């Protein structure tokens, strides 16, 4: 299952919020910056390239997100994957997104490296200059490597380092997104709720949001 996911995510990649209706007017390459809430306050960079897959418009991109905080690069999230438009009828369009995720976390006790996946569907109304859509997705931490510090070992000396599987965590998210285009520029905004995979517990930051700017060239 994981191998299939990885193969798909290798061929189809994705990243930023896309106005499918405006794609014919855009150039092939898009870069973007963003500021958002994603389990922390995060800054993002993204690169994308429009492609065609089985005569369907698609987008390949890579993203890098780094949370704020005094320690730089001790935590980050990178994504590579793709988004493909599957249905369009007049202004209504539906697209699916598949991403592979690699992220890192470090505090005084532990360093974690994680490989995961992010699946999402987006449906909404897309016009040449703007769009509004709803999205829903699941971000899963599939396999995680733990390496504990001397400080944690002072707390618990027999802690077992190494790769942990199966899934070590997962969060559902759902929300809305909207954006505006002008020439080769676009700005977008998305916001929504996050729930843990058991649908019972709320994360510390139970919302997500992102404001971004992209330019095509």
């Amino acid at each position, binding site marked *: 299952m994981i*191998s299939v996911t990885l193969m798909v*995510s290798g061929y189809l990649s994705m990243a930023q919020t896309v106005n499918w209706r405006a794609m014919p007017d855009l150039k092939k390459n898009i870069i973007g910056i963003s500021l958002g809430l994603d389990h922390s*306050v995060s800054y993002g960079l993204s690169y994308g390239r429009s492609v065609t897959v089985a005569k369907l418009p698609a987008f390949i991109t890579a993203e890098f997100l780094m*949370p704020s905080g005094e320690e730089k690069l001790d935590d980050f999230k990178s994504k590579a994957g793709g988004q493909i438009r599957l249905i369009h009828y007049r202004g209504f369009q539906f697209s699916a997104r598949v991403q*592979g995720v690699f992220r890192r976390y470090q505090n005084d006790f532990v360093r974690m490296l994680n490989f995961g996946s992010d699946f999402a569907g987006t449906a909404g109304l897309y016009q040449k200059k703007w769009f509004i859509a709803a999205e829903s997705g699941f971000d899963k931490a599939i396999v995680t490597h733990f390496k504990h510090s001397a400080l944690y070992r002072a707390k618990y000396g027999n*802690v077992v380092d190494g790769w*942990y599987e199966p899934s070590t*965590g997962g969060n559902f998210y759902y929300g809305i997104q909207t954006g505006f285009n002008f020439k080769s520029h676009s700005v977008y905004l998305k916001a929504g709720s996050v729930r843990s995979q058991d649908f019972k517990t709320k*994360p510390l930051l139970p919302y997500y949001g992102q404001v971004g700017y992209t330019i095509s060239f």
Partner: protein
Amino acid sequence: MMIAFMAVWGMVSCTKERVLNEPGNLVPRTVDQDPGLPSIFVNNALLHAEAFGHPDSTLIVVIHGGPGSDYRDLLTSKSLAAHGYRVVFYDQRGSGLSQRFPHKYYTSLGRGAVDLMYDELSGVIAHFRTEVNQKVYLVGHSWGGILAAGYTGKNPDKVDGLVVAEPGGLKWEDIETYVKESRSFSLWSELFNDAGFIEQFISGKTDQHEILDYRAGMLGSKNDITGDDAPVPGNAWRAGAVINAAMFEVGDKYHPDFSAGLEQFQPPVLFLYSGRNKVYTSAWAQHIAGAFKNVQLCKVQGVGHEGIIANSGAWSTITEPNILKYFQSL
């Protein structure tokens, strides 16, 4: 990305499978999982507990914070045994290395969840008491101070001395205010990032104690608001995430008053607070201490919330001398 994934997948497949919720992997086993740990059986729960000093001496029961912390960093106070006391430590049920119970075990009791903790304290005292007239002093830190005060208000004749160290509040509204302010980390800070970003890696389901306790323990390294701005090696064994969440749920719903009955308690109370806790100002200490009929306030300079008892320097130079002086005055 695909190549990296496949490489990792191959590597993981060839190694021994490790599971987060396997006892002993990420957090230590509890007393019901490790018979080698010191334990007592009280009110249908196996509790991690130890006692130091002569069994017939005046009992000092040291009560940890949380709910869901443990007594490891309070062991500094076992030096009181050298002054002729019997010093008792226990991890409350669902906390530290004591037995775990499901979330509903607590919440189904409603308001009675607080009584469960009082009954447990009664059980601990009964377990270690060797004679009916043996005096009992309580020393509670943070939530332990709240619990000790609530117990004393309900049982004013069963407690001979009371020391509380920075109880957040004794009325629920004060507890809410204190907790909110002591955790008001900046959205942009490393502390907030450390607390939130980890939730992408480990989420855990209800009653998966190993996972939830591990994640909760990750948050306990430091808090510059409460003056605990440097992590202390070996300051705790294991967090109790489920009892912490359950007791806050009960508190939110029933607003328990831990100051009820304290007007019946005649002996003086020693009230300790720290010099570096930005939320626990002298004004806040006086406000909370107002619930006691006869109270002595003592500011422990140079430490934060956790350091009042846990910091060995502050303990030996300020906290212990004041506690001994107070006990000798009773």
